[in-house]
């Protein structure tokens, strides 16, 4: 695409000088970042920092005012169809059809993506996301965590190489959050590139290979957790008695072993 950088593998996502304004509100003021293939990239920022705007631009829902971006090697502006073939979006609010059952939601997406054997794809995903029993119930009856799991399951159909998760754990209880984390790790292990946005520092720390901090429309820090740590003053060593966090207490009492394969 550009003239330099021979031999370097094309990153899964490349963003250059992205800007976007809503009337007088400059949400993005020149955003640059790259996401290597198969990695988990966290966009960290407070509410209104522009995280969702970036996700919407990269998933072809919104046009940038200026700058360029490519996903899976395809240019957003000139090859949006090829981009859509490469991606899946799980938006901030679970975009499932509440009137359809969980299984019908999955088969619908499989049909739309032209996947062979939609029924089997749906059944496999229901099993993988612990939704077999719920599969024949309307999604409107699901808990927040179940909806979110269904939502993510719908995003995996057709095996897109890049997945956007916009605040995937906002509004979820701790158990459901741990489960979403497990799913994200699994995706990364299978070689999927994940870009997730979050306002929880802990989530970024837990999941991401690289973390970018978005503040007032710009990326003000970008690196691995270790790199980000180095940019701040060396830690002074203090001895403190470690108290369990309320979340750890909650999970210990409620028992987070009710779901399979969860490691806190």
């Amino acid at each position: 695409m550009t003239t330099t950088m021979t031999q370097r593998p094309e990153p899964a996502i490349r963003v250059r000088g992205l800007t976007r304004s809503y009337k007088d509100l400059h949400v993005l003021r020149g955003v640059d970042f790259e996401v290597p293939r198969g990695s988990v990239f966290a966009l960290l920022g407070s509410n209104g920092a522009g995280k969702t705007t970036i996700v919407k631009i990269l998933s072809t829902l919104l046009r940038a005012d200026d700058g360029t971006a490519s996903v899976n090697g395809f240019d957003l502006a000139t090859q949006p169809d090829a981009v859509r073939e490469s991606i899946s979006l799980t938006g901030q609010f679970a975009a499932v059809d509440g009137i359809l059952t969980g299984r019908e939601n999955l088969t619908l997406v499989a049909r739309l993506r032209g996947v062979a054997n939609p029924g089997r794809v749906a059944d496999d995903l229901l099993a993988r996301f612990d939704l077999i029993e719920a599969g024949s119930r309307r999604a409107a009856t699901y808990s927040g965590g179940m909806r979110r799991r269904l939502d993510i399951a719908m995003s995996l159909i057709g095996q897109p190489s890049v997945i956007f998760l916009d605040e995937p754990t906002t509004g979820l209880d701790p158990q459901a959050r741990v489960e979403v984390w497990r799913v994200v790790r699994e995706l990364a292990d299978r070689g999927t590139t994940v870009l997730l946005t979050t306002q929880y520092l802990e989530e970024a720390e837990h999941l991401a290979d690289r973390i970018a901090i978005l503040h007032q429309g710009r990326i003000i820090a970008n690196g691995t957790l270790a790199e980000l740590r180095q940019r701040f003053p060396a830690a002074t060593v203090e001895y403190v008695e470690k108290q369990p966090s309320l979340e750890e207490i909650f999970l210990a009492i409620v028992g987070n072993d009710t779901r399979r394969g969860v490691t806190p």
Partner: protein
Amino acid sequence: MMTTRFLSNTVALLGRSMRHIARSPDTILTVAITPIALMLLFTYVFGGAIDTGTNRYVDYLLPGILLITIAMGISYTAVRLFADMEGGIFERFQSMPVARSSPLWAHVLTSVVSTGLSIAVILLVALLIGFRSGAGPLAWLAVTGILVLFTLALTWLAVIAGLSAKSVEGAGAFSYPLVFLPFISSAFVPTDTMPGPVRAFAEHQPVTSIVDTIRDLLAQQAVGNQVWVALGWCLAILVVGYALAMVTYRGRLA
């Protein structure tokens, strides 16, 4: 390639919204209730005092009732479309390799089917209270064609409303004027007793030509030039509605 994708996507999404209809069949009845009430009211309360020059008032009344049913039915399309935009599922479809206009066409075709079901309910009630027609299959086919065309035309207006509404009430309320339009037409009473300006409006608005055409077809009378006026109106509304809906849709996309 693009057309096969459009077709398969539209069929998949049509299946989705038909499931919505099947799971809330009350919408079919809700749409039919007001027209049925009007039909009973006019047949048994006002009808006796209206001189239409025909034998059975219900025969005279039915075409107008059918158009009111369509106007009420399409408001659900606006509501369903609005719900899709609000719920985020439209964004999901938009971020997928789905033909751009398939989500809209699925709603539009669903509107035709569900309105057709409501019309069937109305016809049944009309038969029960004495509506009779000796019209042959060809005439009924023509009536069906006009009703489908009218439904398509109004549905694209509903799409504009659904896409640009700010609230679900707003999405549903836009059809009130359309429901009211048959009252200032030849649907309930002949236009020749109306005062000048009202009569002029009534005789030149779309409903009158459509109602008269359907009425003539069902009464086995020659339809004359009226049918071309009726078809012209339907096609004009359809083309303008479709074009505006697409512009609105593109505006919402990015």
